[in-house]
């Protein structure tokens, strides 16, 4: 039986836009605008979408690196205790900070240039009760070996490492308190393709060894197919499609996902489908279009799309749950 580790309900993150001499709030960036999502223990959930659609913001909202404007983030422990995270006081958040961690995108800003690896990693360990220095060194050394680096590297400075190495150190940092869920925010996008593959394999290997759950953020749908159990596609701060990976590629329901998938380069020429080119830019999240947020660019848009907002409905493909939000889906809705 699948058990949830996180339940997001109506999560919104709105950034105020300020202007003028007195910093008056003139509007809001609707970076995340009402996301419902369940993440199950032990799965790899992909989160895909174009740049600026709010993937990083959603990932950070889960860890409360940005405060959600509205909505609930519930953490469910192994003994089925539910805790709502967004309403917790800062200090009550600590036990959950251990469980939820993040690996960042940019290997160049992800490590502090003024400290050795050990120097920047030891404070979190200290805070979570590992008092002896020897023990801290052992934990970090062991983890460095787990990501195929040498223990001695902990006494070196970040500038001595390559991008791939830095990213592996970022993984060490995320792992050092034995988390349950890791948000991988485009964890390999900045790396060379050959290094990408190795870091991805490493992530999968660690997942197996340590029973991790990943929220795998990416803008590249060609990677997700092989890695992720399920994939959520995001557009302008909302989830527009959510299903098992295979179904996303073989039984695509949402026109936006279709367009993203058609943009993946295919090696096999026979399989090459016609590429759907999206017209126009992503609309500004400050003033999202009325009706279906995708309608100005949607090749299938009809009149109803301009006025009515489609909701995320549950369908079934290949016997799997399949959520999508589009008016034109002619499958029976499951309630």
């Amino acid at each position: 039986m699948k058990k949830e580790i996180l339940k997001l309900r109506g999560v919104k993150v709105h950034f105020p836009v300020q202007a003028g001499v007195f910093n008056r709030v003139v509007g809001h960036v609707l970076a995340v605008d009402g996301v419902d999502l369940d993440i199950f223990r032990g799965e790899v959930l992909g989160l895909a979408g174009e740049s600026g659609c709010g993937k990083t913001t959603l990932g950070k909202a889960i860890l409360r690196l940005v405060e959600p404007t509205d909505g609930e983030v519930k953490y469910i422990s192994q003994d089925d205790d539910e805790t709502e995270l967004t309403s917790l006081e800062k200090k009550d958040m600590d036990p959950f900070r251990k469980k939820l961690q993040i690996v960042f995108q940019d290997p160049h800003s992800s490590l502090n240039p003024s400290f050795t690896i050990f120097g920047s990693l030891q404070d979190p360990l200290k805070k979570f009760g590992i008092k002896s220095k020897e023990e801290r060194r052992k934990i970090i050394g062991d983890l460095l070996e787990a990501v195929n680096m040498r223990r001695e590297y902990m006494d070196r400075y970040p500038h001595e490492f390559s991008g791939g190495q830095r990213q592996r150190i970022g993984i060490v940092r995320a792992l050092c308190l034995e988390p349950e869920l890791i948000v991988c925010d485009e964890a390999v996008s900045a790396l060379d393709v050959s290094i990408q593959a190795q870091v991805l394999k490493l992530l999968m290997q660690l997942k197996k060894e340590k029973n991790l759950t990943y929220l795998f953020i990416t803008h590249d749908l060609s990677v997700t197919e092989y890695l992720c159990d399920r994939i959520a596609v995001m557009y302008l701060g909302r989830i527009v499609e959510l299903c098992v990976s295979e179904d996303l590629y073989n039984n695509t329901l949402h026109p936006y996902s279709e367009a993203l998938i058609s943009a993946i380069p295919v090696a096999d020429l026979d399989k090459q489908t016609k590429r759907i080119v999206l017209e126009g830019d992503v609309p500004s999240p400050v003033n999202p279009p009325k009706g279906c947020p995708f309608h100005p660019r949607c090749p299938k848009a009809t009149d109803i799309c301009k006025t009515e907002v489609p909701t995320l409905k549950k369908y079934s493909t290949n016997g799997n749950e399949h959520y999508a939000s589009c008016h034109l889906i002619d499958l029976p809705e499951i309630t």
Partner: protein
Amino acid sequence: MAKSSLDKKFDQIRKREEEKTFSTKKRSRIVNKFLNNRLAVLGLIIFTIIILASIFAPLLSPYDPMRVDLRSMRQPPSFDHWFGTDSTGRDVFTRVLFGGRVSIFIGLGSAILSAVVGIAVGCYAGYKGGWIDVIALRISEIFMSFPQIILVLLLVSITGQSLFNLMAIFILTGWGGMYRLARARMLSLREEEYVQALRSFGLSTFTICYKHMLPNALSPIMVNITLSTAMFILTEAGLSFLGLGVPLNIPTWGNILNVAQDILILQNYWWMWGPVGIVISVFVLCVNFIGDGLRDSTDPSQQG
């Protein structure tokens, strides 16, 4: 299967990484770059000589800077009195040495203290943002827009002249610049991913901003400290020359220069004001060279 292909690949990468000799630590790279800058090194040498000479003044000169000796008034430079003597027979060379103590103390002390205040406020406000930041920003603007000379006049007329009043004024008018520098650095640093990572562990604001972020904001601040030191020394000299700075009985470079107000001395006794003027200029120039050298060697955009 003994080893997965993944392991093998990683072993290969590791071997390559080890063959590459790692560069030495970052610190020494900055030092090297600084040492390659001739002007900065020259500045540092003269700066050190002047500071050491001031500190060890009693060893270098047999005279007492305050002792009036009416038998040897207004003597030109000689073997006994290298810079001559002033109108009350005090040895000018000795006074320049002892004056250096006070002047450098005021300059460096005010610069460091205003940096401490500016950094303490700027780091916290820049990292936290919100109303704390807005208030701190407005207060700094008020202090920075207040003309220094009027503040000096005000304080002198209220509390009288004293060394510490002068330093207090320098700090009041100087911390704003440091604050802005620290704040600006923190604003850009707080978006860095390593800061986000520290926050994701729930570390305290103090640990994050003063321990982990501050070291990365220090180099422009160090440069600013040197430049402010030079500026404060010049301002002290200027104010003391006008009789508004340090009380006249304490020898400072500005107070020694003060005698040049007298047109008679200005025209006839060049040694009473000339050498001290040169020492001030050279010292300020050296400090500026050091500041430039520091800026170039710590500028991250110029690091290979």
